């Protein structure tokens, strides 16, 4: 199966691409001749109709798209093979979205200040903790009036990105 469906993020550009051979591809019913070489897993030289494109690529596993960088501009592309689309249709599973009752670390860093404790009432805009990364302090504030159910971190400890910091009631 050599058919892929792509969607350029933030645009209505949708393409259907079929790899016909190592040198021919069909993009939206138009035939292109191409040549390519992967310099490493994340970089490709692609020649389409003799035009040169040196691009770098990265899979964003979390968001399920591929970041293509051309001339230092990033294009995010959702890309699915025919097979993947078939499997998805069959399983049609739903994944629970994270509820808003949890605060996750937006970046890796060190908790330099922890202003709240379990069970404390806080009001909107109150600084719950300060996360320091690369010498800049970032305040994590309450988005609404709420009660702190559980604090999952300790002051002066480092945290990873997306680590659960605080659970709200």
């Amino acid at each position, binding site marked *: 199966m*050599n058919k*892929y469906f*792509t969607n*350029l993020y*933030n*645009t209505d*550009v949708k*393409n259907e*691409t079929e*790899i016909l051979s190592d040198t021919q*591809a069909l*993009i939206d019913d*138009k035939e*292109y001749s*191409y040549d*390519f070489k*992967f*310099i*490493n*897993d*994340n*970089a*490709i030289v*692609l020649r*389409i109709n003799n*035009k040169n*494109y*040196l*691009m*770098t*690529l*990265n*899979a964003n596993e979390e968001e399920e798209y*591929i970041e*293509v*960088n*051309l*001339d*230092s*501009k990033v*294009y995010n*592309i959702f*890309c699915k*093979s025919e097979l993947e689309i078939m499997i998805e249709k069959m399983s049609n599973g739903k994944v629970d979205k994270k509820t808003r009752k949890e605060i996750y670390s937006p*970046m*890796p*860093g*060190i908790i*330099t*200040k922890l202003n709240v404790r379990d069970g404390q009432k806080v009001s909107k805009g109150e*600084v719950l903790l300060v996360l*320091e*990364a*690369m*010498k*800049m*302090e970032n*305040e994590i504030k309450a988005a609404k009036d709420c009660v702190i159910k559980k604090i999952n971190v300790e002051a002066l400890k*480092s945290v990873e*990105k997306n680590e659960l910091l605080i659970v709200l009631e």
Partner: protein
Amino acid sequence: MSTSYKIKQLFKKILIANRGEIAVRIITTAKEMGITTVAVYSDFDKYSLFTKIADEAYHIGESISSKSYLDAEKIIEVAKRSGAEAIHPGYGFLSERSFFAKMCEVNGLKFIGAGHEAIDLLGNKTEAKQLAIKNKVPVVQGTERPIKDISEIKKVAKKIGYPILIKASAGGGGKGMRIVDQESDIESSLDLAQGEARSSFGDDSVFIEKYIASPRHVEIQILADEYGNVVHLGERECSMQRRHQKIIEETPSVIIDDKLRAEMGESAKRIVKAAGYSNAATVEFIVDNNNNYYFLEVNTRLQVEHPITEMRTGLDLVREQLKIASGEKLAFRQEDIEFKSHSIECRICAEDPENNFMPSTGKITFLKSVLTNGMREDTGIEQGNEISIYYDPMISKVISTGATREIAIDKMKRTLKDYKIVGIKTNIAFLLKLLESSEFIKGNYHTQFVEKEFLSREFKTEILSHDIKAAVTLAAVLFKKNKTQKTDSLKISNNSIRNNWINKRTDSYR
């Protein structure tokens, strides 16, 4: 005792008490001069570029800088053990800490920078301001001594009028600095400024001053030898800033003419001379809408953006620093300094401009830049490196030089477009947008431009050509196909190993 004794011979061996691109920068010049170089590294930096190009490398502690690059005693101990005669502190870390300069002196090591008395005097913003006033250099209104008391801050603020700027006494690089628009914001801003100051500099006193809206930041590079000879090497326009951190610098500044340059240069020289300063210094000024300039502070070290001055004057500032520290006289006078060409520096940072410039960490899986036609890159990173939370997000500097400003801009844009880095987010696309803004092209920007104007600007979504659409789409498809094939072949080879193993077992049991 003879007082005329001076070391006129260059150092044989120096230690570089820094990391990343600036360590690479210093090591390079030192090696060119035939000086043996000693690198010190934290756990994280064990095989970072600077440790590999240095002649010797010593482990000094944990990744967190307070347990390595800020551990003065450990660094001094290594310097003595390795037989280094002098220490170059780079920028940041211990570079502006007078106690460290003093510790070097006490231990018989030459600190490649100003003497500790001059660092104390100029590093203290209040005393530096007094010195400026005494030497007839214009300053901005504000407190004349550091304060900690909040009611006193409120009183002064009322007198000079809002907005005010709260600055950590020992701050720099935008750390420990907050603008306050109204009295009710003072407490929280003071807390943050002091917090940052404490963690970065270990000193939490602050001072406040009148905040000048839309100013330019223009600084003068100074070289001073130990015999009272002082020259200035012209200005650097550093107004392109975000969160008080410079991101693009250029020289000359579009607003500075020969007369103003000479005037600011002489002002800067007066302050440095009065402080009894030697080695490299940068005197920072802010310039208002009417081209009035005010003294801001003196940075008693090599600046991040020093390369543009090097490109414009043809001097190697690290070489000059090493010569001055070893007791040589400046080999040129003010009138010998030639200003040629235009030079621009862009700072490449590991951050995500799309997400409030959040620092970005990760492994660099691909890295390539094409530096031809006189382009320069001062970098500390290599393909395969990790970018961590421990250190500054600034990972590399790209420097372009051209006969005119237009040429320098064109060259910078070309290089940034061809700069390929995968694995972390960077500000390269953002830098390109800035370079293409009409304000930058006209040279009509100030320190508030990025945050107050540029960031809120809506950009038209580009209409993509068919060619580009086809290229990025096909690249994504080929990438996906390549990855799937790799995983599949891995599965197959795993199976074959297993089959083989079963076969062997059966064989031996037969």
